[in-house]
């Protein structure tokens, strides 16, 4: 249970009594995993770029330069230019906000809904549980991102719709994970005590049970962001996402694909950025899991 508290404390930033300070213990353990630390540093870096990106680009990401169409990487344009002579580096930097924002929003939305469903299913059990889990089964019957593709096919293309698609695709796995975690916590003595002193179901669920599922939540959320970036960029690549004028990683790559033979840098750089970002989230998630999971220590 100490680890669960640790995780909860790590998230809320609460300082626990100095004597054992689980937060410090956690930080110390985590810092020992170098790959995870590198992942975290890269995530922080890319988040900063997402916030300030549009203001620090060397060129206007939408500025046409017909004198330098499909130019390869050079001192002037370090990642080359696209078919309209737009600076690829500037477009990728400016597009960080949209690409990362889409994946993060989709993950947060999908996770939130999944967590609430999982809490309800695990806490109330019975018919409610069966119903929620059967709905999840139906969603799981669509292989991979096919559910997201089907949703985008219904509601039409566009970056917001990709976000919705990826969010819905996230819901069932979180509902299952959190339900499992709730079932483990529900039998604990402190939950029984809370109920016996008259806690209302809502309070028991969110104040007493939810923190117990934190560990599973944090690790899976981190892993999920990487997956969401991949799913969103895949949908974008398939042409269901951002319009050609929007600077977005998947869209830049999708456009660049048409010039693979003459301008490979158009595909190389946006893909590399997607790869490194996903890798960072996966390394960080791996590190978190290893630090939080007492079984592995």
């Amino acid at each position, binding site marked *: 249970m100490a680890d669960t508290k640790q995780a909860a404390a790590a998230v809320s930033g609460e300082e626990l009594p100095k004597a054992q300070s689980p937060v410090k213990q956690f930080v110390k353990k985590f810092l020992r995993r170098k790959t995870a630390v590198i992942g975290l540093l890269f995530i922080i870096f890319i988040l900063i770029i997402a916030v300030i990106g549009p203001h620090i680009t060397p060129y206007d990401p939408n500025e046409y330069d017909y004198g330098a169409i499909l130019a390869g990487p050079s001192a002037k344009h370090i990642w080359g230019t696209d078919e309209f002579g737009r600076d690829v580096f500037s477009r990728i930097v400016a597009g960080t906000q949209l690409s990362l924002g889409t994946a993060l929003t989709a993950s947060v939305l999908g996770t939130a809904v999944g967590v609430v469903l999982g809490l309800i299913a695990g806490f109330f059990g019975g018919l409610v549980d069966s119903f929620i889990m*059967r709905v999840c*089964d*139906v969603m799981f*019957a*669509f*292989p*991979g*991102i*096919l559910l997201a*593709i*089907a949703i*985008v*096919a*219904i*509601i*039409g293309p566009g970056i917001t719709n990709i976000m919705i698609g990826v969010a819905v695709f996230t819901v069932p796995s979180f509902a299952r994970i959190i339900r499992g975690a709730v079932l483990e916590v529900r039998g604990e003595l402190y939950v029984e005590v809370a109920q016996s002193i008259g806690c209302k179901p809502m309070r028991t669920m969110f104040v007493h049970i939810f923190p117990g599922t934190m560990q599973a939540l944090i690790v899976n959320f981190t892993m999920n962001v*990487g997956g969401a970036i*991949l799913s969103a*960029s*895949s949908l974008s*690549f*398939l*042409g*269901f996402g951002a319009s050609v004028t929007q600077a977005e990683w998947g869209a830049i*790559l999708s456009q660049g*694909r048409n010039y*693979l*033979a003459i301008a*490979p840098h158009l*595909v*190389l750089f946006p*893909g590399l950025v*997607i*790869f490194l970002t*996903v*890798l960072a989230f*996966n*390394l960080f998630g*791996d590190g978190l899991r290893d630090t939080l999971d007492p079984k592995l220590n």
Partner: protein
Amino acid sequence: MGKYVVKRILSMIPLLFVISVVIFMFIHLIPGDPARQIAGADATIGEVQAIREELGLTKPLVTQYVEWVGGFLTGDMGVSYTNNTTVIELLTPRLPITIYLTICSITWSALLGIIIGVVAAINRGKALDLIGMVIAIAGISLPNFWLGLQLMQIFSVNMGIFPTGGVETWQGYILPSLAMGAGIMSILARVTRSSMIENLGKDYIRTSRAKGLPESKVIMRHAFKNSSIDVITVTALQIGALIAGSVVVETVFSIPGMGRLLVDSIGYRDYEVVQALILFFSLEYMVINLLADVLYGVINPRVRYE
């Protein structure tokens, strides 16, 4: 065993029913009038009405559903508006291509993934383990479309070894299956490694070593046989990702398979084709999961009697 298989098949029926209803409702969930969208903005009211009747949208919902499912079962999956053919005619030449591609991908990725996982587990903490796990985490993080395009750039455009697209020759399958399988290879390597590490720490391993079994037998006959249950479960789950991966990779390599047909049909708003394909992919996924469950029962007798 037979009883277990029958039970498992019967338990699929309600899910199958719900999924078919969900996919059937698909065409009714599209905002606006699907008939109008198919006909285009400049069609007359009469033309739109004709399409509506052709699609059967004027009949009661239940009748429509029964006709649609009945059609699907008898091989009449509707008509493609953009290709002017029946859906079944569109699917027939494409299905073997996608299946072949999927089999190629799963074969190499499962083999290599398991080998990497076992080698990493035996050499836990050593250089080989580290190399294996670096490959695995990189493989999970790689966008398959980008991997496909980079492979195409290196081996087709620059070196000219493989075709840049199409599957007229067997060489055409190599790069796409590499791009499709990389993710699964990595996941399997990780699962195999952690499962093997867990099993290698068990008492029966110590016993078999103590009675003097050669190490290769200890690893393959005892540890790996137990790990194979985890490996099969994860492989079956990952087939879903593989099916979805075919959508992306077929688009990258211009392969005339089911996945690319889906992307094209969504683009053309050819909804009957989209409906049929999504139902088909879900069915395929469910059947594979069923097979995995049966295989699971063969390997692990405990499952059969639950």
